[in-house]
């Protein structure tokens, strides 16, 4: 051991190495943390998840503190609220392609009561060169989804959601359609069933569409939302200018909204409404959907019924093995095998 250490120390001068590293890093990144952090408010992140401070960052950090806050009051006018959510998973792989499963949940409520829900799926999709060649997917997009599993899952999710949104926006009149996520055209949507087509349908049938995002990658919105935390009841703030300045292709107007009381969650919402009256739209939403913990119950239920459970995944695997004459090969998690795991 001593021999080894002497050998290493004869090759590398540790002090010199430390100085070189310090000089190199300081060119692009500051390592003098102490002075920079002193007196700052802080929240710790875990598992790469986005977290927000419960009581906001405080007025000091809010450059939009002068923006108008609009309180929302429930409007008891009978309106159907439909919420749509979906999830997709990669189930299996073959030499040529990948097998995905998708589930979609649709929940409807009126006068604060959910009255019907529809579970769609699980439905299996097999994406391979052969299956994509026969589809209408653009060949560049086809290459991407064959190369990237995340993109493939997103494509399946977007396609099924848009199909459902098209049906609902055609079928209902003067209703509210809730969508999980922002109202942004996607690279993966079909040109005949795009979010724009859905928005057009909504306009034709006087439906409103709200895309609700639980978190946003725009840090500025977190700062702005501090003012809303101070308001005791439901309220919204117009952030259309901020969003439009950051991204160009969103549909409708953007707001940050708090549906619950006190410290309930502050959400970003993209709105498409025929009369552009946000106060009236949010009022009708509050009057027709229940808002436990400041999140629409319909969307929460749609999320729950669209997520895959472990049992379903096991059943899907069983179904594939028993129905499609496939042979399961022994497999291993290469990362786990190589890195191992230290249980503590």
């Amino acid at each position, binding site marked *: 051991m001593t021999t080894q250490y002497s050998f290493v120390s004869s090759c590398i001068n540790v002090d010199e190495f430390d100085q070189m590293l310090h000089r190199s890093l300081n060119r692009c990144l500051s390592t003098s943390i102490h002075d920079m952090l002193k007196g700052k408010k802080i929240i710790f992140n875990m598992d790469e998840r986005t977290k927000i401070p419960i009581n906001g960052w405080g007025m000091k950090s809010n450059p939009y503190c002068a923006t108008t806050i609009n309180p929302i009051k429930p409007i008891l006018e009978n309106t159907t609220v439909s919420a749509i959510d979906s999830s997709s998973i990669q189930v299996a792989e073959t030499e040529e392609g990948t097998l995905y499963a998708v589930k979609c949940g649709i929940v409807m409520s009126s006068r604060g009561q*959910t009255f019907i*829900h529809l*579970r*769609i799926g699980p439905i299996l999709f097999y994406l391979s060169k052969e299956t994509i060649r026969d589809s209408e997917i653009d060949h560049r997009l086809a290459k991407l989804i064959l190369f990237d599993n995340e993109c493939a899952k997103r494509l399946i999710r977007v396609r099924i959601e848009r199909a459902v949104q098209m049906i609902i926006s055609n079928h209902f009149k003067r209703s509210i359609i809730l969508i999980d996520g922002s109202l942004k055209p996607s690279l993966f949507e079909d040109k005949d069933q795009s979010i724009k087509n859905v928005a057009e349908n909504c306009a034709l049938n006087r439906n409103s569409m709200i895309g609700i995002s639980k978190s946003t990658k725009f840090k500025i919105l977190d700062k702005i939302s501090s003012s809303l935390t101070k308001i005791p009841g439901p309220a919204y703030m117009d952030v259309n200018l901020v969003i439009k300045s950051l991204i160009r292709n969103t549909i409708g107007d953007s707001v940050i909204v708090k549906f619950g009381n006190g410290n309930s969650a502050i959400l970003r919402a993209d709105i498409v409404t025929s009369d552009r009256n946000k106060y009236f739209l949010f009022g009708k939403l509050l009057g027709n959907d229940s808002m436990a913990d400041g999140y629409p119950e319909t969307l929460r239920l749609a999320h729950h*019924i669209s997520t895959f*459970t*472990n049992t379903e995944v096991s059943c899907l695997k069983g*179904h594939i093995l028993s129905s499609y004459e496939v042979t399961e090969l022994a497999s291993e998690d290469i990362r786990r095998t190589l890195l191992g795991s230290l249980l503590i």
Partner: protein
Amino acid sequence: MKILSKNGNELIMLAMKTDIATKGDYLLIVDEKSNKKMIVQIYDEDYFSSQSLIEDIVKDEVVVASSTENLHDPLNIGKLSRIIRDARLFRAKIRAAIDISDRLSSDISWLPSRVFSKVERLRISELNSFLGRTGILPIPIGKTGKDNEDFDIYAEEFDGKLNIITGKKESGKSHLSKMLIKTLVQYGAFVIVFDLNNEYGGLAWNSDGSRSSIQDQVMILEPGNGLKFSLEYCGKSGISNMLKNSLDLPAASLREFFRIWDSLKNKKTLDLESLGNAINTWNINELVRDALISRYHVIQTSRLFTDASKRDELRFESIITENRKGAAMIVNMGKITSVVRKMIVELILSKLVDLLEKNIIPPIFLFAEEAQLYIRETYWEDIITRMRHFGIYTTFITNQPDAISDGIYRQVDNIFLFNFTNDADLDKLSKVSLLDNETIRSIAKTLPQRHCLAIGKAVSDLPVVVKIATTEILTLGETKKFFKI
């Protein structure tokens, strides 16, 4: 059904809803690779549960409760999911193994393959053939298993054995004991029953009011009515035992009693009247006289004694001689005081021992209901050790398993365990019985009425759940009720 895991001497099996088996059923695990077989018995049944499965169920229930559900499930995965939710785990105790030459073996140290093992339900007839369980005098006590197979125990297994029939009130104990008594008598056995509820008299009659097949062999004995002894027949030791143990006569008084007895015997005037006169006129301490007089009055009022000259006394040897084909002597003790009960038991047991010792009578089967109420503590040991050697083969029937001492349980050959829900009772049984704690606790708690778990020699030490057959015996001894509904 598939083997899932092993824990100690038990296997855990995964079963789907279509795999029909219940607690107490035997399974045969055939390891097709090693050609070995293992016999296991299901003792508990549970849902196959994982945290995620429970979460799924709860989530689904919440969703379905909140609104009407519509499904579009083209692959019918929901059906598979429901099958998984209904999957069950059978916990089974390893009871025996069968070697390559199809012989029963106690080598259960090997582990059957999870992949190549086939699990199938074992019929009781197949189990019997593996065990080589046969007999000459079958007692068809009921049915067993899902297929309602007839189940017999053999009268030979009761010969020279100590048995306990236990279970909570109205679980079917007396029903089984009546069935056993009837069959034993049919096979020519002599049975004495200490009947606490005056219910065994029904053995003479069928439920439709007709005579039972053993009516002529059933004798109802009550104090003053068939159950009368002469002092001479009981003998000095029998009477002194009764005075000492049942009537708590002090030693000093007992010595004076012996003098009186010897004097009367010499004068050949050993009858009840002479005994009374002698006690009153004997030259003794007044306290001793008082003690003897009070005991004498109890003896007199018990209606248990008669004079030999009247020729109405009970003589066991006469009954046995007159009923060569067997007899059931039912001692009705339902309407008598506890002191008289104790006197009866003391007199009968000491006389039986005396007769058996002298080889005057053949061995006797004794059925004692709630014996703790009339058998003194020191007698228990006598019954299970000494009397057994003389030829008194006892069956205790009780709903208080804790009233029987551990010593008796350790000597017991067969236990017929009916339903118990009380943990304390099950604790007692599981500590001392011939079977493991888990099987007793799990099976006994869920036994329906008239179902029992037979444990011991009668079932070749492989416990069996039996549904006791209905009999035609007339039911007596029902509780007198105020409300006639």
